[in-house]
């Protein structure tokens, strides 16, 4: 009996994921309403619970896909993968304020470049303070502080040690997890409550998953604005980190 139930759930993995996430979201909104009287947004709780489950999955299974490494929940990996994520992000643009998005031009471009340079610099300083002295490692870790894609791309281009590349991925992952959890908490203090600020936020943070999760938990209406600028960040990072920024680091060390 149980085995045939497992078989059904595994065979219909994506459908199982819909049910699983649905229950998880429902549970989170219940907690939000009953325990925090709506103070803590239901989606913020759901995302945090998702991350906790991902940690649990990683600990038990030792894989890289969080809870999706359980064969019963493999569908969560599909549902939460880049394909559906990007599809849903594009859909949120429907009904967005066109004039607010048009302003993305200059401010958005500035915030993306500032964001990449800032994160890279901070990451590089941390690397130096932890004792790294070669420009390649410093740049790779700095790039990882931009996003977990910029890190390995830069590291591979510069011929960094694989251990350093792994560290750069971990720095980027830490960033994206913290952006998801931290955004709703910090949003009122930094004025993140309008499309203009969301554009800048997306450009400065840059991590697509972090921005996607952070804005969902703060105010879903802001998603298209943040996502618009964030989508350029990784590309700009991959452009600047192994070239201009690396040369700057090399000039200093």
């Amino acid at each position, binding site marked *: 009996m149980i085995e045939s139930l497992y078989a059904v759930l595994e065979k219909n993995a994506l459908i199982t994921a819909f049910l699983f996430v649905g229950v998880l979201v429902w549970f989170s909104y219940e907690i939000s309403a009953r325990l925090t009287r709506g103070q803590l947004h239901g989606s913020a709780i759901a*995302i945090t619970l998702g991350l906790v489950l991902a940690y649990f999955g990683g600990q038990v299974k030792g894989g890289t896909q969080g809870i999706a490494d359980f064969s019963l929940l493999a569908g969560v990996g599909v549902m939460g993968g880049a394909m559906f994520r990007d599809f849903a992000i594009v859909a949120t643009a429907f009904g967005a304020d066109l004039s607010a998005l048009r302003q993305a031009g200059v401010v958005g471009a500035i915030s993306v470049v500032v964001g990449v340079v800032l994160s890279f610099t*901070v990451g590089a300083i941390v690397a130096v303070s932890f004792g790294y002295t070669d420009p390649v490692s410093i740049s790779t870790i700095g790039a990882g502080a931009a996003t977990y894609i910029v890190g390995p791309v830069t590291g591979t281009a510069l011929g960094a040690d694989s251990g350093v590349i792994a560290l750069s991925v971990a720095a980027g992952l830490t960033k994206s997890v913290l952006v998801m959890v931290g955004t709703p908490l910090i949003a009122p203090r930094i004025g993140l409550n309008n499309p203009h600020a969301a554009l800048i936020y997306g450009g400065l943070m840059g991590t697509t998953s972090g921005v996607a999760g952070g804005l969902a938990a703060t105010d879903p209406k802001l998603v298209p604005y943040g996502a618009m600028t964030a989508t*350029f960040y990784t590309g700009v990072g991959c452009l600047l980190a192994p070239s201009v920024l690396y040369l700057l680091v090399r000039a200093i060390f």
Partner: protein
Amino acid sequence: MVIYGVALLSFCMLVGVYIGDILGDLIGVQANVGGVGVAMLLLLYLSNLSSRKFSLGDLTKKGIGFWSAMYIPIVVAMAAKQNVVAAISSGWMAIVAGVAAVVVSFAMIPVLAKIGSGSQQDD
């Protein structure tokens, strides 16, 4: 029909991601540059075309609206498949670098927001 909306959305995403890939190739980086952003602009453009050429029916809009509403559940699934263990267990340096980058970037938002909104009034 609902499928028209879903198809329009798919068209926008595929075109956007394709352009993003080409852009990445052109500037010589191994990444998609702005693909999703282009897709969003394309969707906005097509859905705002004046009714002379074509307008979106209510059912078509529902096809897009459904995926827009699925955004949060999809993000929850995305959170549940993150490699959180790698982020936490890789040692202090990676964590400090990630946390510091976030803190400094958060701090910059009000600064840039002021500059941006100031220059808007000059326009």
